């Protein structure tokens, strides 16, 4: 069901943990849906120098968090904001259609963390316009026929 890369990131997730003095913290998801993702960033000179995550969720949610943290590490904040869940899924060598939303969660966790960073530092990012970190949107929309 899952690719080898997904299984690798599920089994040996990169960047699990917390950053106690994080510059940005974001959490998305809802325990009701069975998934919560929390991300911590350390940001220096607009560069994400360290990332950690914690996830309550399925295999694909854990693998997506792991991959997404790898992908944003060393990037500028703007570059991180451009990361889409499709890119995460692609790097994971694909996800089953019913599991695409788990990667969306990763994209949103990143946005949510940067939203926190922007708020704390009074910064403005065009990509975050209309972004609501507490939105109870139905990312969990499995494809129903």
């Amino acid at each position: 069901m899952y690719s080898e890369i997904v299984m690798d990131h599920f089994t040996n997730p990169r960047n699990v943990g917390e950053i106690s003095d994080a510059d940005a913290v974001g959490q998305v998801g809802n325990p009701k849906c069975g998934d919560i993702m929390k991300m911590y960033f350390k940001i220096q000179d607009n560069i994400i120098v360290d990332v950690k995550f914690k996830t309550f969720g399925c295999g694909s949610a854990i693998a997506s968090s792991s991959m997404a943290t790898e992908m944003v590490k060393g990037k500028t904040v703007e570059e991180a904001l451009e990361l889409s869940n499709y890119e995460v899924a692609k790097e994971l060598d694909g996800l089953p259609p019913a599991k695409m939303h788990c990667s969306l969660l990763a994209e949103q966790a990143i946005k949510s963390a940067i939203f926190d960073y922007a708020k704390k530092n009074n910064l403005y990012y065009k990509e975050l316009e209309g972004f609501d970190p507490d939105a109870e949107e139905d990312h969990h929309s499995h494809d129903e026929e």
Partner: protein
Amino acid sequence: MKVYLDYSATTPVKPEVFNAMTPYLRDYYGNPSSLHSYGRENKKAIDTARDQIAQTLKAKPEEIFFTGGGSEADNWAIKGTAEALKNKGRHIITTSIEHHAVLHTCQHLEKQGYEVTYLPVNEEGIISVEELKSHLREDTILITIMYANNEIGTIQPIQEIAAIAKEHKVLFHTDAVQAYGHLEINTQDLPVDMISISAHKLYGPKGVGALYIRKGTRIHNLIHGGAQERKKRAGTENIAGIVGFGKAAELAYGQLTEHVNHLTELRDYLLEGIQQKIPYTRLNGHRQKRLPNNVNVSFEFIEGESMLLSLDMVGIAASSGSACTSGSLDPSHVLLSLGLSHEMAHGSLRLTLGDQNTKEEIDYVLEQLPPIVQRLRDMSPLYENLKEGAR
């Protein structure tokens, strides 16, 4: 080590069952409805299987009707009687923890103008017979309540339910797909009108089941057509499947006591081991009134699919009531009916035992499971909150 602990999902076919089936796939192929000698052997084989199953239920052979599985039996029992009795009334009573084959059928009937009462269960998964009584109405035509639950193994007070149904002259159907092969079901003592059973839950083949219909019960057909199954269920018979079902039933009930004792012992050993080794664990279902092969626990702070994947990687096959395993939005309706929070329902693990399991296998599970739970908890933001005292 490979350990299969998903026997409630499906069982392997026993070698004796497989051997009984093969001649009917390979050598005898005539249509049992035919007049010539090719058909005769097959007709006899179906009669034998019908006898074998009738005996396990202390029923008459002519009360056993073969179907394409447990789901078809459930659909038939419910739609067939609802339709036959629609001029008498349109009210049906069931429970909130039925298998989807019953639940979705009832929901479908609601769209057709029937009214359905879904009885709640207590936190151990058992209905209240008082509550059942209080919902009986003039126009109640059917009570359908499962014998034992497939997720949490809870056994309902079937004898009392049947007595109430009989007293009020309401038809009573029970989905015994999980109970059959684990519990004695005696239709002489139990005034039940219909019973659904399925072969692949007791070491028989997949895709064959049966509906017991007590003589005299009014029921319409679900599958119309040829005169098979005394004109009640059309379609050329799945002879090999039926033969395998008969054999599996005979074997299961021939050694029921040993089988149940073996399972109960392993189950208790497994459950107690888990409870000792893993904190923040909840047993789902009733401690005593449960199937001898069912363990269902929720581990706080973690999610089912990731647990199943981790277990699979060390060779352990299990299942979970988490939505993320099923591709649907909500976690198990059964666990939610017990009053579990969504998180706890998501963190459930079902381990169901079978004939082939050994104590060594259980030891292996008790060795592998705790670090898996711990690893996932260490990754979980919910567990973090706990540690920070945010609870």
